[in-house]
C-alpha cells in the first residue's frame, strides 16, 4: 500500500470521527457481552465474526493514528497501521456484518457495531476494495435519477401492462387506473422495487382502500447505504425526495424494504412529507375499516413472522405487522426470541446482492433453527431482502417452510364486497 493511499485512509477515518464514533471507539471495555448477540458468531463461533471482533479491526487502526497511547506504545492496544493485509481483514469483517444492530442491545454501553462497520465500508471504498457490485448498483441508481425522463414512457407502458394482474386481486371501478403514475397532490407516493411482485399486491391493496396514490418512478432500496457511502446514500434518497416534493404528496410510503425505510425515515433529515412503511399503511386501512380480509385463505396453516431488523429494531414497526396478521389468521405463532431480540435473517448489509450464498447459509443456522422451532408452515416477513434470504435458507436446509410477503398475503385475502 503506498503512502498516498494510507494518507487518504487516515483522512477518511478522521472525517468520520464525530462524537458518537469517538465514544464508540474509545470506550469498549472488551467485556464480550456482545459476542453471543451476532447470528454469525452464534452459528459459527469464530471471534472475527463477533461484534467486538469486527470492531477491533477498526479500533486498532484508530488507536494508531488518533490516540497518544497508540502512537507511543502501540503494543498496549495492539494498534496497527493501514496495510493490505489489514484491509483484507477489514473487508472480511465488514462484509459479513449485516448491520442488524442486535449487538447494540447487548452492549452495556450500546456501542453501535453497524456504525463502526459503515466506517469500515467507507475505508474499503477508499482502498478500492469494496464489492464492485454494490458500487455498481449505487451508481446505477444515481444515473437513473439523472436520466429518468428518457425511460418514463416505457416504464409507464410496463406498469399499465400490470393492470390485468392487479385487477385479478382487486376489481377497481371502471376507468380508474390500476397503477397510477404522476398523480399530483396524491395522498400516497408509493416507492416500490424493480420487480412487479413489489407493485401488484400493493396496488391492489391501495385500490381496495380507494386511496389516492401514485407509483414512484424510483426504487426504494438505497445501495449507497449498503456500500457505506454517505454521499451516494444522499443522492439516491434525493431522487425520491424531489419526486415527492414535485407531486406535493402527503406521505411517502416505502415498500417492503427495511433499509429503504430506515434510510428514508431516519437518516435523510426532515422532509415536507411523512415517511411510513407500507406495513403501517395496511394496518391503518384495517383499523379504519377501508379493507377487509378473509381468514379462509390461510386456513389450516400455522403462520409466523420475521421482524426485519431495519423495520423493527432499527425502525420501530412492531405492532402493525402483528395487527395485520391478527386479521389474516387465528393460527399465528411468535418466534423465540422475538421483536427486538429477533435473530437477523443473515442477508442484510448487501450480502444478498453480493451473492455470498455459502456464508449466508452457514452464518444463519440459528435463524433456521429459530423459525423451524415454531412449527409454522408459513413464514411471513416485510422486507424483500429478508424474503430472499429466508427463502434461500428454507430451500437450502429443506425446511419446507414457505416464505411470504405480508403484503402478498393481505392482497390475496382482500374481500371484495
Amino acid at each position, binding site marked *: 500500500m503506498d503512502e498516498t493511499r494510507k494518507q487518504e485512509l487516515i483522512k477518511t477515518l478522521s472525517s468520520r470521527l464525530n462524537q458518537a464514533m469517538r465514544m464508540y471507539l474509545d470506550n469498549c471495555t472488551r467485556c464480550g457481552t456482545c459476542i453471543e448477540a451476532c447470528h454469525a458468531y452464534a452459528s459459527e463461533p469464530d471471534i472475527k465474526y463477533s461484534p467486538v471482533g469486527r470492531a477491533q479491526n477498526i479500533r486498532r487502526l484508530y488507536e494508531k493514528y488518533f490516540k497518544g497511547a497508540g502512537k507511543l506504545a502501540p503494543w498496549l492496544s495492539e494498534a496497527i497501521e493501514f496495510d493490505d493485509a489489514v484491509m483484507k481483514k477489514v473487508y472480511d469483517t465488514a462484509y459479513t456484518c449485516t448491520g442488524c444492530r442486535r449487538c447494540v442491545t447487548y452492549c452495556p454501553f450500546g456501542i453501535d457495531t453497524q456504525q463502526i462497520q459503515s466506517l469500515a465500508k467507507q475505508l474499503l471504498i477508499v482502498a478500492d476494495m469494496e464489492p464492485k457490485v454494490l458500487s455498481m448498483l449505487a451508481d446505477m441508481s444515481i444515473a437513473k435519477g439523472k436520466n*429518468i425522463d428518457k425511460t418514463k414512457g416505457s416504464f409507464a407502458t410496463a*406498469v399499465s401492462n400490470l393492470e390485468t394482474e392487479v385487477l385479478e386481486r382487486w376489481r377497481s371501478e371502471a376507468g380508474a387506473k390500476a397503477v397510477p403514475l404522476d398523480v399530483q397532490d396524491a395522498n400516497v407516493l408509493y416507492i416500490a422495487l*424493480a420487480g412487479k411482485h413489489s407493485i401488484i399486491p400493493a396496488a391492489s391493496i391501495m385500490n381496495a382502500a380507494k386511496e389516492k396514490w401514485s407509483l414512484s418512478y424510483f426504487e426504494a432500496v438505497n445501495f449507497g447505504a449498503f456500500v457505506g457511502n454517505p454521499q451516494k446514500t444522499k443522492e439516491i434518497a434525493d431522487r425520491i425526495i424531489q419526486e415527492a416534493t414535485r407531486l406535493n404528496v402527503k406521505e411517502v410510503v416505502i415498500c417492503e424494504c427495511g433499509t429503504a425505510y430506515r434510510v428514508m425515515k431516519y437518516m435523510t433529515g426532515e422532509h415536507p412529507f411523512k415517511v411510513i412503511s407500507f406495513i403501517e399503511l395496511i394496518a391503518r386501512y384495517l383499523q379504519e375499516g377501508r379493507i377487509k380480509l378473509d381468514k379462509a385463505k390461510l386456513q389450516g396453516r400455522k403462520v409466523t413472522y420475521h421482524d426485519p431488523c431495519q423495520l423493527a429494531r432499527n425502525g420501530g414497526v412492531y405492532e402493525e405487522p402483528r395487527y395485520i396478521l391478527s386479521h389474516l389468521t387465528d393460527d399465528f405463532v411468535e418466534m423465540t426470541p422475538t421483536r427486538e431480540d429477533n435473530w437477523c435473517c443473515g442477508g442484510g448489509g448487501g450480502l444478498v446482492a453480493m451473492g455470498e450464498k455459502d456464508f449466508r447459509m452457514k452464518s444463519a443456522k440459528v435463524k433456521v433453527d429459530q423459525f423451524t422451532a415454531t412449527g409454522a408452515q408459513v413464514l411471513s416477513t416485510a422486507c424483500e431482502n429478508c*424474503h430472499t434470504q429466508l427463502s434461500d435458507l428454507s430451500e437450502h436446509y429443506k425446511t419446507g417452510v414457505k416464505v411470504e410477503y405480508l403484503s402478498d398475503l393481505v392482497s390475496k385475502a382482500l374481500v371484495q364486497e
Partner: protein
Amino acid sequence: MSDIAVAKILDLKGLPCPMPVVKMSQEIGSVQVGEVIEVHTTDPGSLSDFPAWASTAGQEVLTSEQNNGVIKIFVKRLV
C-alpha cells in the same frame, strides 16, 4: 425487433431485487464486444434500471419491447 442478432438470451423473470441488474452485469462478460444479450424480465423497474446501468458501465441498451407482460431488453456489449 427480431432483426437484431442476439448472441445470448438471459431469462431474469421474477427475480428478487436487485438480482436482474446483478446477473446482467455478470453475464455481459460472457459475450464478445459488439454482441448483444437479450434479457427477458417481468420487472417494470428494469426499463429504467438497465439503461442507467448501461450508462455507468459503458454498455448500450439498443431497444426494448413489451409483449404479454414480458419485457425484452437488448443490451450490446461495448467494452
